């Protein structure tokens, strides 16, 4: 650890009001989701976006320079996090928007997310209705959504959608409801399909619906993973209890060219990084694991510009003491939309 280099940038990180002037960050190294480690590279930030990435960048007037010790990685993207308790018992609640539900009064908004490097998260309604409503994308700690209507939620989880008063009671009932509703839903709607059995997948295919969709396999993916080859699939981090069967399943999924996108669902944000670490160990492929919580997660949400360090992307960056998926690395600071919103051990920089 090069403590001397921290003397100057300490001053910069103590500020928390956004500044209009650009910042140049000079970390020891930059790590990209595809695994590329760029040493000696710099990142130029203006406002809430990244402007340039490279070496010996031409700097506009008034650029402040921050020499950072550590590895800079894109902030993690939580592909789906569920909001609150069950809202409504009707099977179809398509006007529901999670963007309306976020509480702005919490004092330490998203502190738990920021402390583990999750810089953006996709808030989805709970999949307890067949069509639950709209998700929204947020930057951690921010009070305005980045995307107010991202993906629509479609659930074929019989245990969760079953309702004794209003129905449906089971999978065929849910399929029947979808058969009626899907034709009248706008073609531009992009669904996240929550399924947990091969039968649900089979049933969905029988509807022959042509809305764009991605599957989120809430459970039992070993049962139907074989039918999802070459697709991007969401996986809850709760699934990452690493027993031999899970590890082998993940390897087989990767072999079938399935791309993972992790979401915490109902769990703690800490599990996001842990899931990626376990995936890295199971598949012996850290880059693949990094993608599962950055670019692939972004693709599942349908938003570009998060989870990458590239011109035009949101300036969501996290500074680590080593490789982000290394268990011995620790998080040093988190930046969201160009603002440093979290620092670990502020007193240490002396």
């Amino acid at each position, binding site marked *: 650890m090069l403590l001397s280099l921290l003397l100057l940038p300490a001053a910069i990180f103590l500020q928390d009001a956004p500044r209009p002037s650009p910042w140049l960050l000079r970390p020891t190294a930059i790590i990209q989701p595809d695994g590329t480690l760029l040493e000696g590279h710099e990142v130029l930030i203006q406002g809430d976006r990244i402007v340039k990435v490279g070496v010996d960048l031409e700097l506009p007037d008034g650029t402040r320079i921050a020499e950072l010790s550590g590895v800079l990685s894109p902030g993690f993207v939580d592909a789906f996090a569920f909001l609150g308790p069950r809202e409504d018992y009707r099977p179809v609640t398509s006007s529901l928007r999670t963007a309306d539900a976020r509480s702005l009064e919490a004092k330490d908004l998203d502190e738990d997310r920021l402390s583990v490097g999750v810089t953006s998260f996709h808030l989805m309604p709970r999949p307890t209705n067949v069509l639950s409503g709209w998700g929204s994308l947020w930057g951690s700690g921010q009070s305005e959504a980045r995307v107010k209507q991202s993906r629509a939620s479609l659930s074929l989880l019989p245990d969760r959608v079953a309702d004794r008063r209003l129905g449906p009671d089971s999978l065929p009932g849910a399929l029947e409801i979808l058969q009626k509703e899907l034709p009248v839903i706008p073609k531009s709607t992009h669904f996240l399909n929550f399924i947990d059995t091969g039968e649900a997948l089979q049933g969905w295919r029988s509807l022959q619906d042509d809305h764009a969709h991605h599957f989120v396999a809430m459970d039992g993916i070993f049962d139907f993973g074989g039918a999802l080859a070459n697709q991007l699939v969401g996986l809850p981090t709760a699934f990452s209890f690493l*027993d*031999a*069967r899970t590890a*082998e399943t993940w390897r087989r999924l990767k072999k079938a060219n399935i791309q993972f996108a992790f979401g915490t669902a109902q769990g703690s944000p800490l599990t996001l990084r842990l899931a990626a670490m376990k995936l890295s160990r199971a598949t012996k492929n850290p880059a693949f694991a990094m993608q599962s919580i950055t670019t692939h997660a972004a693709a599942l949400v349908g938003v570009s510009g998060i989870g990458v360090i590239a011109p035009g992307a949101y300036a969501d960056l996290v500074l680590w003491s080593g490789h982000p998926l290394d268990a011995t690395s620790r998080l040093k600071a988190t930046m969201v939309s160009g603002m440093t919103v979290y620092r670990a051990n502020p007193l240490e920089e002396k």
Partner: protein
Amino acid sequence: MSAQHQKMRSSFLLFPVLLLSLTGFSSAQEGSVAFRVGTVITMDGSTHSPGTVVVEQGRITAIGGADLEIPFDVLLKEYPDATLFPGFAETHTSGGLDRANENVPVAPFLDVKDSIDPVSYFFEDELRLGTTALGIIPGANCVIGGRGRVVAPAGMTMEAMTLDDSMGMKIAIGPKSGWSRSAQMAELREAVSKLNRDLRTKAQDILHQGAVKADALKADEAGEDSEEDGDMWDSSGGYVRFGEDFPGKDLLSEEDVDEIQRGLVDILNGDERLWLWCPTATDVFHGKTWAEDLGLLDHIIFVVTASAWKAADLLMESGRPVTLTGSMWHVERDPVTWEEVRTFVPTVFHEAGLAFSLGSEKSRMGPHRLGYQAATCIREGLPRAVALAAVTTNPAAMWGMEDQVGALKVNADGTFVLMDGDPLDIQSKVLQVWIRGSKAYDRNTDERLQRLLKGQSR
């Protein structure tokens, strides 16, 4: 009032009927019959086709071919197309009992004789399927379950059914329901420790009282009640023969031991056969060790389930017989791929050189019948002789009754089953069952079966 009158009237009617039936009896000797049939499978090494079996006063007196001479006063029955064989033997079961176990974990004082229900449907079913001897013993939900006995499935009273009352004691190594194995073994050890403490205490009492029994030296006259105190328990010393010596040991008599613990003394003395319930392979290890520590290995018969195939070597080492209960297949699931791996256990036992017997589960009609299980063994590649022995002579040997049941030989019980085909053929029907020279079952008069076959309702 009217009920009483009705009762009396019916008993008036019953008496002449009984009288008639008694006087109508044939002049032939009771328990004597001869059968000449298409095939006689003796399970004693020979098969006669055609064959003849002669039974006199409940015992087999001659076996031979078609030309065997038959005594003049024995009724001859001829069935040229039928097969005769000793009948299946159910080694170890808790069917036919009111309840398989008591709640008390250590119960060496229990005996199945108090619980066998002769009119239970269980025995009727066994006859129908051609089983001629059953080892009835308490169930597995215990630590020490009690005594069992070998019975024939025919008779109006328990005494009439009994073939042998010294089958042995049930001891469970596999834990009682809700218990852990450590608790189970602890209870077993505690029972023995408690017994030892109590015996030493009692011996001290006797010594302190100065009541030296006059006949203490007559301890070798087994079973004699020297003081004639009117009970069946022996009061001469020398009852306790196991373990280390302690003061007054040779003065202890059967009467001195608490009746709740007498059974345990018999066990430790080595006077009881022990049926050791070891449902998993690990239990086999613990059971064997426990028995060896007490010097009782030679009295053990292992009662196992399919998972014991993993302990086949250990069982072979012990040199003791094994009875397999429940399913003959063991299924395991690969933890990663969930692929099922099935092992056919009798093959493993046979290849390890074990003497084993098969047992059917409670369900009788399906593939768990003894005959069908033996056929399944042959299906999986075992020799016919081994498969048949597992359901006839091996159980008899485990009961210590090789000369009495399980095989047709001279002086064995005149107990056999008449079938219309090979015993292992699922399509063979049991035509008649004879127990000790008396007919116990006849398919033609099996009312319940006929009702099912002809589709009649009550």
